[in-house]
């Protein structure tokens, strides 16, 4: 369980992002606590990707305050990048390289020395059973495994926060569940996970969820809190209720 006084790792206050006259993020205010699995839900175009892009330092906010792992988004982007890992919808792996080469390459980008990379590979072998795949080309590996490799790569530099943008899109029910086991283990080891998903059963697995619509936060809390507040049985019903009104 997440304690009340736990350290806040993401702090957003009145965060605004405009593209021309279009307001993509409209005064977002929220906190994420260390070790939380924080689910970001919303319709396509609700502003989730914009919010994530700001949190990972790819977009500058138009106004408002945003601190990631204690670092300021306006002035300390480089430190933020080292604190975070990011797994996008389209896993950015090099298909022609082997699994090991991919891990080594991304480790190199983060400036890890070969000794550290080797210890991270060991960590991946133990936690994700990757041993037999290390010398295989990524192009020959099934989708479910690519997803795991992309997760390993996002964790290669042992970041404090990992962002997962629709990590299970198009993945079958069995593989989705296996992947969530990985998310749980990683979170249990103290990492903070920010995840977006269109699978509402997965939203139930988050410690807290934030529902966005039209650039605004419409609801935020634990799945249980929100379900009782809105008097619904599932997050799916909650989502439809909030988004359609």
């Amino acid at each position: 369980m997440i304690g009340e006084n736990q350290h806040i790792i993401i702090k957003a206050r009145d965060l605004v992002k405009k593209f021309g006259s279009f307001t993509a993020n409209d005064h977002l205010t929220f906190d994420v606590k260390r070790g939380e699995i924080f689910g970001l839900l919303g319709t396509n175009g609700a502003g989730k990707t914009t919010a994530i892009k700001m949190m990972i330092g790819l977009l500058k906010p138009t106004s408002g305050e945003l601190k990631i792992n204690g670092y300021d988004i306006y002035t300390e982007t480089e430190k933020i990048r080292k604190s975070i890992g990011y797994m996008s919808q389209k896993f950015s792996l090099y298909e022609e390289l082997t699994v090991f080469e991919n891990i080594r390459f991304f480790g190199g980008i983060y400036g890890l020395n070969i000794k550290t990379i080797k210890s991270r590979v060991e960590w991946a072998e133990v936690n994700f059973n990757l041993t037999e795949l290390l010398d295989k080309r990524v192009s020959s590996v099934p989708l479910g495994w690519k997803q795991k490799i992309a997760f390993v790569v996002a964790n290669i530099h042992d970041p404090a926060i990992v962002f997962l943008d629709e990590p299970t899109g198009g993945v079958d029910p069995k593989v989705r569940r296996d992947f969530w086991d990985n998310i749980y283990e990683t979170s249990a080891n103290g990492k903070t996970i920010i995840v977006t998903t269109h699978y509402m059963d997965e939203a139930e697995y988050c410690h807290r969820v934030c529902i966005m619509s039209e650039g605004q936060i419409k609801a935020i809390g634990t799945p249980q809190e929100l379900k009782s507040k809105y008097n619904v049985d599932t997050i799916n019903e909650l989502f439809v209720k909030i988004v359609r009104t």
Partner: protein
Amino acid sequence: MKTIKVENITKSYGKVKALQYINLTVNKGEIFGLIGPDGAGKTSLIRILVTLILPDSGDAYVMDKHVIKEYKKIREIIGYMPQRFSLYMDLSVEENLQFYANIFGATIKENYSLIEPIYKQIEPFKKRKAGELSGGMKQKLALSCALIHKPQVLFLDEPTTGVDAVSRVEFWEMLHNYKKEGITIFVSTPYMDEAWQCDKLAFIKNGSILSVSTPNDILDNYPLNVFEIKYENLAELITFLNKHLAGAIVARFGTTLHCSSDKTEREMRELLYNFEHVQVRVIKPTIEDSFLLLSQDK
């Protein structure tokens, strides 16, 4: 006449047997769903039926037209929405639609009523380039393009991947409307709530079809008891059940656990006796339970 008929189709890529002697039939006006693990052969089968790739052996017909000998005729009467929407990202919304109408010798005007419910949602952005649309809007445009020549059969390869829960519901409402218009729909999906809405479902795994039946029949023939279990620490319970019930399928379903097992309700309660405040009840299986059972490695 069967709208789709597949007879002993095989397809290999090098050593990989993507499809192994596939047989199935689809009736006019049916929504026929194809489900199965990633890499099972769903996309290969669809690509053969839309005449994009050739089977190694076997025959397949769409509206009695042979997929190899009469491929041109098939292309005129089907609509196809591939996984990665085949839109021209540099063209505007309007231009994409016009282009697809042109290649089929149709006009937007004559079939506008068919696409109106979807297209009017993206019409405000008709001057925008397709590449600048959100995922949900791309999907609506791709469907409009697939429908603009009023096809008799619509092939959809995971049309709702990456689409939000509300838009998915709306998308399926539209599919049901097209079904009412007499259009036959052949669709693959990783979403089990969508599979549930199909008239018939084929489960495909390792290139073979394991079953074809109505969703209700699948559930009626489910061979195990499904226990829905509520408990404070599900992780602990999962470990326990996997250890003590060999062959059982244990999976999280939202805030509950589903355990499929040949145990009786009484045996299950006895097994879980030491778990304080545990709640156990036998429920009707869902399509997702069925999927997990069929995709289990034997």
